[in-house]
């Protein structure tokens, strides 16, 4: 037994013979916030999708609360996916549903909650991201920042054991980034277990338990923010930080 909520152990993944993840291991303890940075194509998004059980792994395993899930069949996986919240770069809100229906639909379909109860809980979570007044708006009527906050509420309402964020602010206009990061900082303060792929270094400095640097399908460095920024061990990390700053 470990105290890891979410754990990857020697995960490997290839697409068309190209190794995207190479022996990646990662432990996320309860309440920890891990921020992953790295150049594009380094495997960050793929790692997140493997952790979200959206991609089968070629080798290694993914554990949620010490239960080995990555070997399960598609049919059994669906239920477990709902225990891990996922937020996408491009929001992926259901375009044919209002904000409220976006948040409540999986409560009805997956958690089998009665509609009334689902609606109440969905409203409560929309309120939590500050969008109770937008319940009846459709995605295309919302700003990018608002859409992303609805997407966060949609994942949170399932009461996941961990939340995964795949570059949640990189599709946003500069002045909308703040509102999304504030919601995420609030979550971190409330003790949510999180893995965040992001190049928002200020955010990482404030809330991360540790920062991971990925390059060519490997985690090449992991350290608490202080140490990571002031004294990166790896030459590749130093070069990357110089570019991002």
């Amino acid at each position, binding site marked *: 037994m470990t105290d890891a909520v979410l754990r990857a152990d020697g995960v490997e993944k290839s697409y068309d013979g190209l190794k995207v993840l190479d022996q990646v291991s990662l432990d996320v303890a309860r309440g920890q916030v891990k921020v992953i940075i790295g150049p594009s194509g380094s495997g960050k998004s793929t790692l997140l999708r493997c952790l*979200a059980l959206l991609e089968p792994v070629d080798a290694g395993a993914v554990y949620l609360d010490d239960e080995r899930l990555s070997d399960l069949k598609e049919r059994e996986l669906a239920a477990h996916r709902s*225990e*891990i919240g*996922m937020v996408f770069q491009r929001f*992926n809100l259901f375009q*044919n549903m209002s904000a409220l229906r976006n948040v409540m639909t999986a409560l009805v*379909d997956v958690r089998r909650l009665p509609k009334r109860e689902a609606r109440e809980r969905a409203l409560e979570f929309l309120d939590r991201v500050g969008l109770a007044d937008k319940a009846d708006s*459709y995605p*295309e009527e919302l700003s990018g920042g608002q859409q992303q906050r609805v997407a966060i509420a949609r994942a949170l309402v399932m009461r996941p054991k961990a939340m995964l964020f795949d570059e949640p602010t990189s599709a946003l206009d500069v002045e909308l980034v703040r509102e999304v990061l504030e919601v995420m900082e609030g979550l971190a303060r409330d003790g949510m277990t999180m893995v965040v792929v992001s190049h928002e270094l200020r955010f990482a400095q404030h809330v991360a338990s540790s920062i991971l640097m990925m390059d060519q399908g490997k985690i090449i460095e992991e350290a608490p923010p202080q140490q990571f920024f002031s004294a990166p061990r790896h030459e590749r990390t130093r070069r990357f930080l110089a570019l991002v700053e």
Partner: protein
Amino acid sequence: MLASFDTHLFWEVLHSGPYWKGALLAIGLTCASLGAACLIAFPLALGRASRRRAVRALVFVYSWFFRATPTLLLLLIVWDVLPQLWRVFAGSWFTPFFAAFVALSLNEAAYMAEIIRAGLLSVDPGQELAGRALGMKRWQILRRVIVPQAVRIVIPPTGNEFITLLKLTSLASVISVHELLTAAQEQASIKFSFPEVYGAALVYYLVIVSVLMFLQSRLELRFTFRSRGRRATVPLPVAAHDAR
């Protein structure tokens, strides 16, 4: 001035029983065939993306066969050939209308399958990914997310198919289905007043297609995903600056 146009005859023909019945028959046959075609086409559209090769091959053969066969020939095959091959089809239940319905549905499904497939493909893959991440099952994602969004894309070409099919129903006259155009031809051969008789038939087609176009625009609005309040307040064009 028109050399001869008997307005009275025109109105008489327009109101006549054979025209009404012919028009209702054409509309009924079109709606029924298009409805059935959609039901057949949906699994075909899904089947084209199937992981199993046999399923994909089956879909291919279907679409190849029914697109290659002329609609007229298909009507004759269903009405004349089937009863000679299998006795069940010789029964009184196998009416010309039903035969036409079967032939047109099978034929139309091959085209609708392509339209529905294009509609399904037009939905952003991120929508399915989000559904899976929430733990929804494939059919739930299809029903709640993908299909409603695909419908929006599918409506306009389906309107076209309706019109094509409406015109194709006149082919059913070869198997003695008395739809609108057949009624017009019969009247023409009796009265020899072509302008009035064909003019009246034209009016029917124009009216039917106009109603369809109206219904289509309503349906498109229904599948435009915006809140009611916003829909009602479509910004009015800004009035031109008054220079006086």
